[in-house]
């Protein structure tokens, strides 16, 4: 895909729209990444962490009960929820933390929405003896209190961000501000395929292990490629990781599932492709939910991890070129999928991942029984149990 990626661009999307103070830092990062990504020692070290620390490769599990019940295509789940720390986020974090360490950085900062990226960053920092500070929207610290405590257990400082909407975008704002004030010893471990170049490329590369494994496992199991690969999309890192190795396989349909909140036709939504338009924000040219004057919209989703007003630039490009399609999934549909997968397969998915499961539930019955859908199950749902109970009108307490 190198031809589509020119100076950090995916078509017209991407770029480096950041304060001058950070320019040398991103240039230095790009240089270091280009040096280490082909370095056999670096690759071997990261591979060792993937296998022996994160638990890769993750399983590709055929959800037979689910497939039978839905009565259409066969559904396979890529079990990123079984990774150490419970989501795909660890793939990117191990890569970036190792890179930062090689660059001589001693401190990691990160933004987090649902807390999964924060937990993964805190974990890598603990393992690699680095200092760690995680920025998290105030509202998110409340709806994901368990992950806040996990990060603190891992030795990280969690800084709640109360500006703006108190959610993921505000956490990104504050992490960027923090990075401008302390660069020399600090690496900003960005959690998704977003932000200024080279982050969308680096995060995608470290996450692309997902799609590579899907392809290999599918060929081993079925001797063929899947018909559909789908994943939930906030910034889009798990989707990009799952899609990337299939972009050249035109027969494989790629579907991103966005958080529609209360509906893509309501203001309470985070469905960027459905409701946003081209703009420039958080260092990148991409698609954003915004008003006519370019003010970033206060988006909403039940899922803190998808509650983001933009999408990574490579997704914007995949959308614009028609290579991938993006569908909105509401809170209610996601919660139903969350409950359905738990009951049907004994797998409690992250509410983020449940958005992809929800669309698979719609799509599978419309497809023939010999067709194959792979759903990237990006994370596990333990962190969401209390919030889903609340959504269903139950207040869980340990008393």
């Amino acid at each position: 895909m190198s031809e589509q990626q020119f100076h950090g661009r995916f078509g017209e999307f991407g770029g480096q729209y950041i304060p001058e103070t950070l320019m040398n830092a991103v240039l230095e990062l790009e240089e270091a990444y280009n040096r280490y990504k082909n370095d056999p020692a670096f690759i071997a070290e990261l591979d060792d962490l993937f296998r022996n620390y994160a638990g890769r490769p993750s399983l590709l599990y055929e959800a037979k009960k689910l497939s039978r019940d839905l009565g259409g295509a066969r559904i396979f789940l890529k079990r990123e929820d079984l990774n150490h720390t419970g989501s795909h986020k660890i793939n990117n974090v191990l890569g970036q933390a190792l890179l930062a360490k090689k660059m001589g950085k001693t401190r990691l900062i990160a933004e987090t929405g649902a807390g999964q990226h924060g937990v993964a960053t805190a974990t890598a920092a603990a393992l690699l003896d680095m200092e760690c500070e995680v920025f998290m929207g105030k509202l998110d610290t409340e709806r994901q209190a368990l992950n806040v405590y996990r990060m603190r257990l891992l030795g990280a400082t969690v800084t709640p961000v109360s500006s703006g909407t108190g959610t993921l975008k505000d956490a990104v704002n504050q992490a960027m501000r923090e990075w401008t004030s302390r660069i020399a010893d600090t690496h900003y471990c960005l959690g998704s395929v977003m932000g200024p170049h080279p982050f969308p490329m680096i995060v995608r590369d470290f996450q692309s292990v997902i799609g590579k494994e899907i392809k290999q496992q599918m060929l081993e199991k079925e001797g063929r490629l899947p018909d559909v690969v789908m994943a939930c999309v906030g910034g889009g890192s798990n989707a990009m990781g799952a899609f990337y190795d299939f972009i050249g396989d035109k027969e494989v349909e790629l579907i991103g599932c966005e958080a529609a909140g209360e509906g893509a036709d309501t203001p309470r939504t985070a469905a960027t492709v459905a409701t946003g338009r081209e703009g420039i924000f958080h260092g990148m040219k991409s698609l954003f939910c915004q008003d006519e004057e370019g003010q970033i919209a206060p988006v909403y989703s039940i899922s803190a991890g998808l509650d983001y007003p933009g999408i990574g630039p490579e997704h914007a490009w995949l959308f614009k070129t028609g290579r991938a399609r993006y569908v909105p999934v509401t809170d209610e549909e996601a919660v139903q999928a969350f409950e359905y997968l738990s009951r049907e397969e004994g797998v409690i998915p992250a509410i983020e991942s449940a958005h992809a499961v929800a669309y698979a539930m719609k799509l599978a019955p419309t497809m023939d029984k010999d067709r194959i859908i792979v759903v990237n199950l990006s994370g596990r749902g333990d962190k969401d149990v209390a919030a889903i109970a609340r959504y269903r009108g139950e207040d869980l307490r340990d008393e």
Partner: protein
Amino acid sequence: MSEIQIKNAFRNKNGKAMIAFITGGDPDLATTEKLLLSMQEAGADLIEIGIPFSDPIAEGPVIQEANERALAAGCTIDRLFDSIKNARAGGVSVPMVFLTYVNPIVQYGAERFMTRCNECGMQGLIVPDLPFEEKGEIADVCRKHGVDIISMIAPTSEDRIRKIAGEATGFLYVVSSLGVTGVRTSITTDIDAMIRLVREASDIPAAVGFGIATPEQARDMAKRSDGAIVGSAIVKLVAKHGRECIGPVSDYVKSLAEAVHGI
């Protein structure tokens, strides 16, 4: 209004400019109009007007809150342009520039935005999220309309200073410190070294901003460069006094201007 030019700001007896920043529409546009005239009368040589934005990533808490107040009070780009036009008609003749993130310009339409800048008397733009490599986003339209893009250099710019200064227009914004805008008790960056690099590449005026709050700091920074930019400290007064801020802001800007002009 074509006679108003950014270089006018650097044509005092000592060539040093006192540059004042306020967030447009904070606490409301009527107050903004009054502030523009009163800051000019108090001795400001150039005024920066922040276009309020939902997510100002280069700003510290003081200006973030000003952005929130202005948006809550209903400030839009069109209304801000109208107020600036009123202020110009009311006698504001110092050069003025916007501080705005790039997305509002792009969404408003760069061509339409610059046309309005010409019509209302805005001479330049400071766009904190548009570094050297990305200025092509609006550079052609700006050039066509004679609206200067004010480039920034930071303590981390090092080898980039020469190339940025070499292509800079209007004046060069020298970011004094790491981090976001806001008052600082001391500035530890080697400003002199940064200015030396600028001078090697260009004779463009260079003014220092970020963290300047006292007349002494303003004097010191203007002595080392061509001017001092003060933002958060003024915005703090606006926050404290609301619509009654004209007097306190005037007195404060006067003390800064006297310090800068008295070098």
